[in-house]
């Protein structure tokens, strides 16, 4: 299947692991990603905060390019997905836009994942954390289970993961407050750690590079700040697919994490590369 791929700015640097694992997973499932030529920034939170016109024109610039290609468009970053969907409403584009987790969460790909499973992840207990932008507001995202999304849960279950229920799937991680109001982000993320541990999860699975950054990059600082001792690996769901399907490169992606997941996976005897 041919789809247009809009990576978004973070996937070129702080979320390279997400980009690399997305490309590898899609290739292994016969999803042919065609990167949108000359894509530009969606404007993110800053555009809609300060300039309502740019909040539409910046993403719309990419919509026109994607329409010319004709295929559905897949977007790994939930914030980009959200901004592109909003612009679509304004400019009345008929392009079909998916957020990556909802795309791979479709029955067709779940079936393919199950049939190609090499190393089931039964030994891992996890919670799936979706954050805000893939689902809210449902008027924009088209999400049905916006208070309790299940795409990543379904994917992880297909991989054999012991997915724990919890009530914090769509709570906010603080997003860009990691830069401008760290104290707010620290409080929000600490709560997520505590609730994940309370649900007996050993790791957190995410589909958003802002969530990953806030939960992974600052975990040590948050531990120090609250005099805690958090050591919770934060995986992209694509990395877990890579691990379970035995895809080449999985270790390279995982080595980019700040909270080193290698010892955790070695203990579970899940590292074979």
């Amino acid at each position, binding site marked *: 299947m041919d789809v247009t791929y809009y990576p978004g700015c973070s996937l070129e*640097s702080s979320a390279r692991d997400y980009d690399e694992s997305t490309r590898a997973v899609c290739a292994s499932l016969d999803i042919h990603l065609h990167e949108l030529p000359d894509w*530009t920034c969606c404007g993110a939170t*800053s*555009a809609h905060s*300060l300039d309502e016109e740019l909040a539409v024109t910046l993403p719309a*610039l990419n919509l026109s390019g994607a329409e010319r290609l004709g295929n559905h468009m897949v977007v790994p970053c939930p914030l980009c997905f959200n901004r592109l969907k909003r612009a679509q409403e304004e400019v009345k584009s008929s392009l079909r836009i998916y957020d990556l987790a909802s795309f791979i969460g479709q029955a067709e790909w779940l079936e393919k994942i199950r049939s190609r499973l090499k190393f089931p992840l039964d030994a891992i207990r996890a919670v799936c954390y979706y954050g*805000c932008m893939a689902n809210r507001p449902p008027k924009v995202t088209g999400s049905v289970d916006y208070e309790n999304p299940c795409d990543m849960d379904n994917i992880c279950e297909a991989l054999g993961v012991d997915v724990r229920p919890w009530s914090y799937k769509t709570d906010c991680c603080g997003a*860009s407050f990691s830069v401008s109001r760290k104290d707010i982000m620290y409080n929000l993320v600490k709560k997520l750690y505590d609730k994940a541990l309370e649900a007996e999860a050993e790791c957190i699975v995410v589909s958003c590079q802002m969530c990953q950054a806030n939960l992974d990059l600052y975990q040590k600082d948050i531990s120090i700040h609250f005099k805690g001792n958090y050591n919770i690996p934060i995986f992209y769901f694509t990395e877990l697919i890579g691990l379970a399907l035995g895809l080449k490169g999985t270790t390279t992606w995982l080595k980019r994490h700040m909270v080193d997941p290698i010892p955790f996976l070695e203990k579970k005897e899940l590292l074979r590369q």
Partner: protein
Amino acid sequence: MQVNNDIIGIESGFARQVALDSGVDLFACYQCEKCTNGCPVTFAMDYEPHQIIRMVQLGLREEIARASTIWVCASCETCFTRCPQGVDIPKLMDYLKQLVLSQGDKPAEGAVAAFHQVFLENIRRFGRVNEAFLMGAYQLKSAKAEKRIDVKEMISNLKLGIEMLKRGRLGFIPKKTGAKEAVRKLFEK
């Protein structure tokens, strides 16, 4: 009875103007507080979200301009998703941020405003955001906005940057996009 609105700082017509300009139906709010109860960042706010709506209805323009809340709102969309009256509160918060800046008022959260400004400037220059440039520019701009340099914060960010660099998670060379000029044109308006 003649009421002197100036004494209590009420600006009549303000609410109507905000509703008209922002497109947010703020008169639909009946203060059920569902927004506030679901808001994840009320602990860092000076006014709760439902109070901001009431303040707009009452025309308390100056209080609103001084409020942290409009900047502390994380745009998580929980309130809008759950509001029984469909009041687009995050959109109202964005409108109020823009109102503060267009009036030339000092934003209550200088660092947050500085981040957004630097972010947009980054897009204008490169077409895409370069995180290393963004962080550098932000440090300078926020120091200027807050009129102080947080050395501890700078060192901690620098350390994080080095760790990210070691892991290949920070690129210093902005990636090229052929649509850079098209983006610039959007900014010229």
